[in-house]
């Protein structure tokens, strides 16, 4: 079902004007997605792009894909339903750190262990942007926010470590401070056959920490390649992932060299199991209930 025509960045740009704050990191993420999609070459109508709710979750609306800006935290269940119903589609899911690791955090391990061919991009800004600046699950301990005026009392989650622990087969991190790098990562994630996860450090200019903005990213980011990381080594990847919150590593933490079968492939296999077998046509399904 893939199309031969090639698609430019402009083909993925919708008419909706982003309402993000000027300087929000999500602009760069959007650009990187446009670029990655144009490199992939699937037509917009063959792409389904699902998100939850949050500033970041507005992103599908800014693309020409079949978008679904759903409800808070539920991007992954919906994306899995789409992929299972229509496996030929390119399915992207995206959202914020709150959306993905707090209210939606219970869905992530299961999406990963099922291993559908979906790419999940989290725009991690360590804050709740849309609701104007409350603590997010990735906010560092002690952070003062609108909902923690005296400082947070909890350790943050470590999304990189978590997903590696969940057995994710493709785990990467990027920042819009390096848009070329980010679009390459997203492209690689999409090309990866199986569930792929890209954590994007996407600064919130309005409510985020001043030292976590694009400029700081540019100065501080360290490519995993530059530290000689071998992305087929999960244990090493977990070790490096521990630096989440201190060192901003960019690149691929882990990529399974021999990705197993995806869930939708297993489903397909299951189906073919029955092809050729004598099955009562669905119009006559009630005959199955005649006692014999």
């Amino acid at each position, binding site marked *: 079902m893939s199309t031969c025509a090639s698609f430019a960045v402009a083909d993925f740009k919708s008419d909706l004007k982003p309402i993000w704050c000027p300087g929000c990191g999500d602009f760069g993420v959007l650009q990187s997605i446009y670029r990655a999609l144009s490199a992939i070459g699937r037509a917009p109508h063959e792409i389904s792009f699902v998100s939850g709710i949050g500033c970041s979750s507005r992103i599908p609306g800014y693309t020409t894909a079949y978008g679904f800006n759903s409800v808070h935290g539920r991007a992954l269940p919906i994306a899995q339903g789409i992929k299972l119903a229509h496996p030929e589609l390119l399915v992207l899911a995206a959202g914020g750190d709150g959306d993905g690791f707090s209210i939606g955090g219970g*869905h992530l391990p299961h999406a990963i262990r099922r291993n559908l061919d979906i790419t999940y991009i989290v725009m991690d800004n360590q804050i709740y942007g849309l609701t104007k600046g409350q603590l997010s699950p990735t906010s560092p301990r002690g952070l003062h926010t609108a909902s923690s005026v005296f400082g947070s009392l909890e350790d943050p989650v470590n999304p990189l470590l978590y997903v590696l622990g969940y057995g994710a087969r493709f785990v990467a991190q990027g920042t819009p401070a390096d848009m070329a790098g980010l679009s390459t990562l997203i492209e690689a994630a999409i090309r990866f056959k199986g569930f792929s996860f890209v954590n994007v450090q996407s600064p919130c200019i309005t409510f985020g920490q001043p030292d976590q903005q694009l400029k700081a990213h540019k100065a501080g980011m360290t490519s995993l390649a530059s530290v000689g990381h071998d992305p087929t080594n999960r244990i090493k990847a977990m070790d490096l992932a521990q630096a989440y919150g201190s060192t901003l590593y960019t690149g691929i933490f882990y990529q399974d060299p021999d990705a197993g079968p995806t869930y939708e492939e297993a489903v397909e296999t299951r189906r073919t199991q029955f092809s050729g077998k004598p099955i009562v046509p*669905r119009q*006559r*399904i009630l005959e199955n209930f005649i*006692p014999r």
Partner: protein
Amino acid sequence: MTSDDILIGMAGAGGDGVISAGDSLITAAALTGYHAILTKSFGPQIRGGESSFKLRVAKAEVFTVAGTLDVAVALNWDDFFRFGAELPVGPKTIVIYEADHPVGPEGPKFGGVRPAAMVPAPVAKIAKEVAGTEKAKNTVVLGLMAGWFGFIPDALLTGIRKKFSKKSEDVLAQNERAFLAGREYAEAHPLAEAQPLAPLGTDASPKILTDGNEMCGAAAIFAGCSFFGGYPITPSTEIMQYLGRELWKYGGVVFQAEDEIAGVGAVVGASFAGKKAMTATSGPGMSLKSEILGLATIAELPLVCVNVQRGGPSTGIPTKSEQSDVFQAAFSAHGDAVRPVLAPTTVADMFATTVEAFNIAEELQTPVIILSDGDIGQRKEVVDLIDTSRFTLIERRKPTSLELEHYQRFAMTESGVSPISEPGMPGGNYLASGIEHNEAGAPTASGAIHARMNEKRIKKLSPLKSRRDLFEVFGDPKAAIGVVSWGSVSGVAREGLRQAEQLGVSAKLLVPRLIYPIAQQVYDEFFASLRGGFVVEQSHQGQLYRVLRMYVDVPRSVESWARSGSNPFTPVEIAERLRDIAMAAQRNQSGNHEPAID
């Protein structure tokens, strides 16, 4: 004398094979062509506790096992009495009991009634003698049934042969012997009080043996559902399990999600991707699904959500049927979110109701809730084979190529239903969302658009209110006394009406399959001739009655007759209340009836 209709109840300890005996009996009934209903009941233990069944076998269609037993079988008294009111013994009941557990001269106390006969039977003894093991006790009982009540001996014997055909020759032979010994014992000890089952004529129509949950799954496949997402919960789990065995064969997918939210989330995704999709659950799961059901309403995505109701609130009583989720089904979403709610009336009707739910969902682009109940979902029934050629299947309204030129997913139309595209369709690209949106799907905070969109989403459901085929009226349509009843209780009401008619009472019964939105006219017409009546349902608050009042001027003389779950109504009660109302109406033309029970 023979009987056209026998109600049997049996109880025993875990390991007595009570359930297996019930299954054998209903299978025999089905093979022969009788109508039948089987319900099972267990102690609180997951395994090994006491168990019981109630089985009704009849020549004509029957709707309930509620009421006094014709035959009671007690393998031991402790376990029998653990089921209390579930196995009601009356003055016409023949009680057969294990002779090893004798009764004193007074006999056991059945709440003060004296049964028609107390018949000890040496079940364990026969089993040990002829089969060498007490395990064959249940097969001996089958033999007794065959002997005393003419209970379809051939079919039972065939059934026993099939059932044990995979076991060793020995086991098969043991059970054959046990059955025959039981039958011989019965024949040797004739029972004056027994009225054996009347033989069927040759015109018995073909039968199927099933339950409401299976009928739901089968109907989904029939309707073209290709995606099921769910999470186990009593008493709905069998829908997922049935589909897990069958849907794959028809090219569909069954997705056991991590919770109910993910289950319905995946269903919304599959629907967005263009597929007919379903989820099923019970009360607690419905509560969790509320948010995503609201999303489906505003995103105008078709889906079917089945709630097999159980006793509530909260975890409540999972194993008992109730009808107390009407409020929730109609109103759990925040905002002005109206969604159709259907309820099946019988096990067989669960098939039609599910097909209807898919049709409405696809045609009107809305989630549809099916309010089944534990009774319909789990009781086994022998019913007539349903002719599926009478169903039309409705597919969603795809955009034409012209419409795709300037595609507007939420275009205002006469009917309120807009053409719906799906991923993969060039030109149909749009943004689905839970945010209020304009016709093109773009987010908006405009009050004017919001008002129009609310109007559109609600208006498109109006045609349902004229769907008279979603209502059935029984009895005399001009009667001055009437009942409204729904779900499994409507079967009890049908039998109650029948009995009332036998008492000379002229009455009528309205059974809605459309629970919400309320078809005001249908009720107005039904109520027009009434001078008395009631809405009878299995909930503490009488929830349908209350919802009716929201839209219909229910006459004062029509009262709510409501009762919490795990307290079944019986046809006799309903007939008697109808008779009381009729008598009161005769005495007092103004019809101000004080209810006997409320």
